[in-house]
């Protein structure tokens, strides 16, 4: 047999040859010095390469990241969520939604978070801490939403806990790693905004509480800034009730000012206030009242439009200003057709006869009336403070 080639020698050493072939190679190598050297070399290569390859076994781990497990939400995502919510909150401010029953998701999650922070909220210093707030931010609009929804479930807790509670709320929500990226994280994002948003620095503690209380979104916040102690009481009172949303003046009739309130989404009542005044006064006071209620600093388009049709009216007055002489009407209840009922009473502040109409029972209408009264009283107080 001629000299086996290198491949055959390796095959032989690896035991890969058939018995016949192996016997032939073995016989040849026995008598061939050259092939013995080749076999020795091959053995060396086999051993050396094994040794070299062993050095590869200390390969590092984690050079390639495994499929990423649950990861904490990127801070950028929070920012995006915050932005989205600010926009959403802005929309909500336009389409005010003060329902007591229908706000299922937001209210439920906010309610959960509120209960989570209940213990911390109980601490008395929470209110004090809350006063040391951060600078106002662009997200300020979002705050009332969170406050509202959370407070509806747990009004006393939030009112007392103030922003401290909300901050804890944020922490709690963020800690719950949000795999359930849906409602839970939405609530967390809400908390994030509400926690950061805050508190014009001139607020005192009382005002802070008022702000944290559910209140009538922006209007109430304005009161909070005023910071009167009686507002505090009012805010507390309001905290017990879900809010009403004034969604704008209804049709205006002569000698009557109508305001549309939304009790729940799609559920509205009409408040008709009989004003025995000159048309001019009606328009002007209507504009003033609207402005006061909405908390908008500048006269609205609408007030300008109505002022155009009326005589010049440079100094708007609140509706409460001139008490007209109308015979007092005791609270009365008129059951109308189609379940549309009307509650009539005399406004204690203005002395005007006020009618509240809606698809509600008497008890409901009376509850709504109480809330409207509170709102109007708050608006009146604010207005008078502003004037001073």
């Amino acid at each position, binding site marked *: 047999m001629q000299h086996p080639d*290198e491949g055959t*020698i390796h095959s032989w050493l690896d035991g890969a040859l058939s018995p016949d072939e192996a016997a032939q190679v073995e016989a040849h190598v026995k008598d061939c010095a050259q092939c013995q050297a080749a076999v020795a070399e091959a053995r060396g290569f086999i051993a050396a*390469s094994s040794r070299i390859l062993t050095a590869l076994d200390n390969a590092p781990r984690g050079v390639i990241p495994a499929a990423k497990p649950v990861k904490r939400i990127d801070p950028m995502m929070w920012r995006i969520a915050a932005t989205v919510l600010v926009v959403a909150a802005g929309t909500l401010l336009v389409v005010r939604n003060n329902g007591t029953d229908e706000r299922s998701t937001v209210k439920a999650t906010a309610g959960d978070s509120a209960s989570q922070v209940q213990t911390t909220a109980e601490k008395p210093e929470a209110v004090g801490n809350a006063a040391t707030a951060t600078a106002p931010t662009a997200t300020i609009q979002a705050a009332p939403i969170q406050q509202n929804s959370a407070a509806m479930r747990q009004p006393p807790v939030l009112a007392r806990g103030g922003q401290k509670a909300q901050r804890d709320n944020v922490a709690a929500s963020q800690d719950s790693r949000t795999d359930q990226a849906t409602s839970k994280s939405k609530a967390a994002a809400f908390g994030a905004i509400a926690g950061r948003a805050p508190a014009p620095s001139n607020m005192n503690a009382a005002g802070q509480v008022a702000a944290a209380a559910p209140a009538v979104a922006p209007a109430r916040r304005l009161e909070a800034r005023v910071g009167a102690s009686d507002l505090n009481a009012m805010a507390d009172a309001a905290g017990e009730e879900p809010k009403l949303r004034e969604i704008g003046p209804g049709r205006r009739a002569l000698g009557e000012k109508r305001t549309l309130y939304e009790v729940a989404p799609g559920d509205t009542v009409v408040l008709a206030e009989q004003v025995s005044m000159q048309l001019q006064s009606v328009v002007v006071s209507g504009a003033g009242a609207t402005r006061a209620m909405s908390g908008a600093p500048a006269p609205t388009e609408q007030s300008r439009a109505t002022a155009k049709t009326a005589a010049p009216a440079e100094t708007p007055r609140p509706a409460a200003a001139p008490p007209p002489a109308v015979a007092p009407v005791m609270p009365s209840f008129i059951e109308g057709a189609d379940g549309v009922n009307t509650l009539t009473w005399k406004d204690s502040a203005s002395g005007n006869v006020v009618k509240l109409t809606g698809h509600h029972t008497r008890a409901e209408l009376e509850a709504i009336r109480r809330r409207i009264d509170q709102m109007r009283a708050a608006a009146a107080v604010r207005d008078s403070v502003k004037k001073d």
Partner: protein
Amino acid sequence: MTDVERLFRTYNAALVRYLTRRLGDRDWAEEVAQETFVRALRQTSIQNERAWLFAVATNLVRDEARKDSRRRKHLALLAEQERDTMVEPEETTLERAQEAAMARKAVDALAERDRLALLMREEGLDYNEIAEALELSPGSVGTTLSRARRRLVESYEALQKSREEREKHAAS
């Protein structure tokens, strides 16, 4: 597939070692090995288990390598890893790290087929299995292996030599 658990117990260690040597990353190797066994699950019958597993694992690596982004990420992380390991001052660790780096270089210098055949052989695959996994003729496996071994050892020794010279140069 009859018994994946048995397959796993029998071949996982070898497969992971083979893949680790091939890829230079233990986690990646384990990932590919797992995927290999998952594929085995879907098979109704496998003629030669070991050859099949190594072939599938090899193909998975090859497919993986085509994913450019993955590769780039790998390199970026490798660089990061290297920076991290730089901190280790221990002589023995450094020595071993240098050996591993040279081994890596020497293995990477091989032709793909030579490298795979050699790595498979190191895991105990016989010539027929290697031929089957790499779609070679059984007669050429010996030649392939002898070439791979020689080249691996030669390039490793060359690297070792140049390193010694560098150290000598640095010392003088």
